[in-house]
């Protein structure tokens, strides 16, 4: 599908809103913001990736900003598609010691402990 057609399509969707308020053009994400998000998410981005992420993320945020104009006063956020309440389980011990099996995939274990680089508190 052609890129222009895409933008037209997006605009058409905005047009279907009951109350049409064209939102202000939002500022794209800054490099610092993206850097901060990457740290929160513990993701190392290479230099060449970084530029690309800033630009694509800005586009995505721009795209989802359409939501701002939706008529949601007095609407309860949907926590779940089902109108169910939580099922509870009995307080029974149902798990046995499966340490060996569970640690088969571990990158680094010693004496039953998972090892990570030393943490200083």
């Amino acid at each position: 599908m052609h890129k222009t057609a895409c933008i037209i399509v997006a605009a058409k969707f905005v047009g279907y809103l009951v109350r049409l308020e064209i939102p202000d053009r939002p500022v794209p994400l800054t490099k610092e913001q993206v850097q901060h998000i990457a740290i929160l998410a513990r993701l190392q981005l290479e230099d060449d990736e970084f530029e690309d992420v800033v630009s694509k993320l800005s586009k995505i945020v721009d795209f989802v900003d359409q939501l701002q104009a939706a008529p949601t006063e007095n609407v309860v956020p949907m926590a779940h598609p089902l109108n169910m309440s939580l099922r509870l389980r009995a307080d029974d011990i149902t798990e046995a010691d499966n340490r060996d099996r569970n640690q088969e995939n571990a990158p680094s274990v010693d004496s039953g402990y998972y090892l990570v680089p030393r943490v200083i508190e």
Partner: protein
Amino acid sequence: MTASKASDALYLQTLTELARGLAGGEFSSRELTESLLERIDAHQKSLNAFITLTADEALAEADLADKNRATGAGGPLQGLPIVHKDLFCTAGVRTTCGSKILQDFVSPYDATVVARLKSAGAIMLGKTNMDEFAMGSSNETSFFGAVTNPWDQKTSPGGSSGGSAAAVAARLVPAATGTDTGGSIRQPAALTGTVGLKPTYGRVSRFGMVAFASSLDQAGVITRSAEDAALLLNAMAGVDPRDSTSADQPIPDYTATLSDSVKGLRIGVVRQHFDEGLDDECGKTVKTALAALEDAGASLVDVDLPNIGLSVPTYYVVAPAECSSNLSRFDGVRFGHRADNLKDLLDLYCRSRGEGFGAEVKRRIMTGTYVLSAGYYDAYYLKAQKVRQLISRDFNQAFENVDVIAGPTAPTTAFRLGEKTDDPITMYLNDIYTIGANLAGLPGISVPCGLVKKMPVGLQLVGPAFAEASLLSCAHQYQQITDWHRQAPEAFR
């Protein structure tokens, strides 16, 4: 049109037909499994539909199935071969989710879906390729390379269940499991001329299905007929005490009601769907399909889903938010990829995840982290969950006047590989028609309804919660008066 299929090559038969053949002693599970494994092998390079094959285990299970059949033992899927999307945990078998970060991960347990199909007697031939962590609509984000569409191998089979769809479409296997969060079963089914069923949220257990977006994910199947989908759903459906979000609803026999007539069925057609976003020829094909149902006695009713246009942006707030949290467990500590020469803990996290995840996954994690972060939660996540409520209400209101909602599954036929990978938004818009059902937790099915320039087009049916039986019977009736679902891609006939 169901001509006798005994003469058809085994690989062309549906699951239901194969079940009859096995029961009638026309061939053995061993023969069947061997022939399919050969076929898979022959096409793996060009299609790349599989990440892992479990040939030895499958043959052993086939032999066991043949023994069981001799004594009358065994479940309804006894000795029938299927494949699982590599998002399902399979005990003792590599489970990668299409990602480098789980490249060598061998799951210690079976997903509930896998276990139930196994106890019904199904034989797993392997794990299919998919978009990494189910994030994608083209199966191009897999660490293990793209999957090609058997109808035209320069095009994408859709995603994220691209491998499952390609395998079924190419007649390598009769059926495959898939997962659908925004359309990942239905869209690839449409693009590959197969049947794709996404059940109601909570109909099938999510335990062992690696989580992408927990409030949207649902396990389903890709088959070549609605009948087959019903057969599999019977075995998969049902509450699971290990999944708090699974629904405690009775399980009807989905195969028993397939012959229900469509006479009097009220089919809603969504005004908003047939607009400039939809390829003209695809639109005409879908309209022809609707006309056929009308001829068979259904009535077409105009339906309005006023907020449906916001479904894609809503999805792209909710899904990344949930996935950003769900994927935090991939940290190189207890399993999965760990970077070398670690400096400190921060390095462990940032480099293991940075190296292990692909670009689309990282983008979605970042998007999700952003929309949940301080100062943005209300404007994005909370807002999106409210819009989701609006969309759900629209569906509920529509279903007061119609029994099913029908329309196109995808806006175009299969697009060329590499065509859409530059702009994320363009890719996201492939799910325009499918996402609404995920947001509202409703069941949906895509059935092949025609060809445009020799490429498949899908008709989507969406129903109210737990109305899979109606969807399947409507689809089955459509498949009695058309034979699009029997058409195989040229190179795989």
